[in-house]
């Protein structure tokens, strides 16, 4: 039974988000088609879809709202994941038919797996030394190999990450707010309600709008329900194992852009970030304290996942600014509109997903997006930025409007 539950968790927390990411991977430029980014956008998509399904279910359905929410969301996730799976199979079949798996001398299984992996995630492919020596190669479009020293530092980072994950299991941080957030999840799982019972006592209540719109608790309850694991275990023991690496994945993507030409600096950057996270407990208020002690709470994720995602999207946009035309064309597969604006689309998804974390998160993410967009506008002097940021902020605006409307009723 334990194995089945673990497999169910693996399915819903790793495989499904991955396949969901694959379904929208086409928006990414080639250099960004990596396993990490695919996983990140898969999670973002999952949060966005849950917001669209969860909030209406919560507001409109009076009885057994969570049961219907779960059913609809299962269908939606499976459907999107299926699209991703079909994309994946099509790519592999096309590659197989065109003989890409049999090119070269090495015909081993490992080589075939490697070829298949880089077909799906071309952004992860590191350049060989010959490519660097070729005068026709543009070094800005290739990913450089890591030295042995760099690999050693990656090892150090993974030791720190492993330590944090073990500590997340063996330590039980006490936080009074769990009596609210975790119980909301458990109520959804056990009583099929969506925020309509007071967690402290168990008495029925009208929707508490201040917290109800942030349906991250319900997303966790969904994971608990479909994997048959107690919601409190999901929140306290499973979520840190997923969310801590996910947050570091975002930092790794930030670092990848900052150190695009110095790949050996990236693991060092990650070591510093992970140490800062672990030693950032200078008070109960810091984002790092929230991250390590309340990983499963929406506000902790708003501060530690959503805000870094916004920073990443803008670092990416700044990085894309004033790239030479030929390089731009190569990266964006001929300059398709969606691919050229993939960072903006991701920004839109982040703004949307921040709503499920906390209502304050929506305002913070919207504010930070607006401010960074203002800086990019000054830098590029491209007025199209105004239109793009307005479009990217639509989810936040709708969320706040919805919040105000319901509050006024």
């Amino acid at each position, binding site marked *: 039974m334990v194995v089945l539950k673990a497999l169910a968790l693996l399915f819903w927390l790793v495989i499904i988000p991955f396949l969901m990411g694959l379904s929208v991977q086409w928006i990414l430029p080639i250099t960004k088609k990596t396993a990490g980014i695919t996983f990140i956008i898969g999670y973002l998509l999952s949060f966005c879809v849950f917001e669209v399904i969860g909030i209406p279910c919560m507001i409109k359905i009076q009885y057994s709202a969570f049961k219907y929410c779960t059913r609809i969301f299962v269908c939606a996730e499976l459907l999107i994941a299926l699209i991703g799976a079909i994309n994946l199979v099509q790519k592999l079949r096309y590659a197989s038919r065109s003989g890409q798996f049999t090119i070269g001398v090495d015909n081993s299984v490992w080589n075939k797996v490697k070829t298949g992996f880089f077909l799906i995630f071309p952004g992860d492919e590191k350049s060989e030394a010959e490519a660097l020596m070729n005068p026709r190669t543009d070094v800005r479009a290739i990913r450089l190999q890591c030295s042995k*020293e760099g690999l050693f*530092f990656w090892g*150090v980072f993974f030791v720190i990450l492993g330590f944090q994950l073990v*500590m997340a299991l*063996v*330590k*039980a*941080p006490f936080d*009074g707010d*769990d*009596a609210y957030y*975790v*119980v909301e999840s*458990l109520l959804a799982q056990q*009583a099929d309600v969506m925020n309509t*019972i007071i*967690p*402290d*006592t*168990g008495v029925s209540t009208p929707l508490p709008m201040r917290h109800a719109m942030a349906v991250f608790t319900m997303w966790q309850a969904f994971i608990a329900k479909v994997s048959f694991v107690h919601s*409190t*275990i999901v929140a*306290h*023991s499973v979520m840190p194992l997923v969310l801590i690496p996910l947050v570091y994945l975002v930092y790794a993507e930030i*670092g990848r852009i900052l150190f695009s030409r*110095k790949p*050996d*600096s990236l693991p*060092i950057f990650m070591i*510093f*970030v992970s*140490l*800062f*996270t*672990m*030693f*950032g*407990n*200078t*008070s109960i*208020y*810091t*984002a*790092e*304290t929230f991250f*390590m*002690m309340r990983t499963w709470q929406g506000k902790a994720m*708003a*501060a530690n996942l959503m*805000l*870094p995602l916004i*920073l990443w999207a803008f*670092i990416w946009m*700044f*990085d894309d600014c*004033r790239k030479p035309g030929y390089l731009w064309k190569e990266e964006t597969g001929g300059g398709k509109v969606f691919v050229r604006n993939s960072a903006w689309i991701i920004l839109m998804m982040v703004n949307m997903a921040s709503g499920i974390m906390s209502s*304050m998160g929506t305002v913070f993410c919207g504010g930070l997006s607006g401010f*960074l967009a203002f*800086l*990019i506008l000054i830098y590029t002097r491209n007025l199209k930025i105004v239109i793009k940021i307005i479009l990217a902020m639509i989810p936040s605006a709708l969320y706040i409007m919805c919040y105000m409307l319901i509050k006024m009723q």
Partner: protein
Amino acid sequence: MYGIFMESYVIFKQYGGSGYLLVLFAAALIYLLFAEKDMRKKLPVVIAPAVILFMYFVPFTRIAFVAIFDEATDTYYRILWLLPMGVVIAYAGCKLFAEHRRIGVVAVSVAIILCGRLVYKNENMLKAENLYHIPQLAIDICDRISPEEGEPRVRAVFPEEFIHYVRQYDTNILMPYGRDVVHWQYYNAVYETFQKPEVINAEELLAATREAKCRYIVMYKNRDIDTPLEDMGCEIVDTVGDYNIYEDPEMVD
């Protein structure tokens, strides 16, 4: 305005604790301000945090924040979450020691460790007793009173040390008061008679628990009470750890 500025400053100081990590962040920011020449990196990683930090101290920001977030507790410190402190320090560290990576790794790591405070040393970081991350004693007590499948939910009074945990384990156990009463000091008759007095008045307690329809009372074995609950008609269902679980026969149905 000066008063509002000082409020922001006090919150900033509280946020930083010892303050060394904030100093490290400020040093990293100043270093990058001069060392980073690529505006594409400088704008989002250096200029933006510097402006946000400046805006944090501007009194109008605090006035607007309080107006937008009409909350009972002061959450202005959350503006500081917008500062990517980890990214700034890590980026500055990598840049400063770009030519001496090994020395840099040690130096910056030591600086972060010495300036910061390990999260696992936090007094609220307890040892996990199970995967629920709630005390095993709370689980054992809940297991004893939890209704069977198909049975109606039960309401039970718990001492303050358990109220955060009970419903994280089983929502079929209702409570007459939760952490809201303790936190916000709302009036609650059961809390007033059970938790507040040094010596419990058994008659008043039972009147309150019956009014709230509590079937069980979980009480520390040596809790001072004027008349034992057994003498008032309650039955001891079980003793788990140092706690007696009483059942009120009048509330069984």
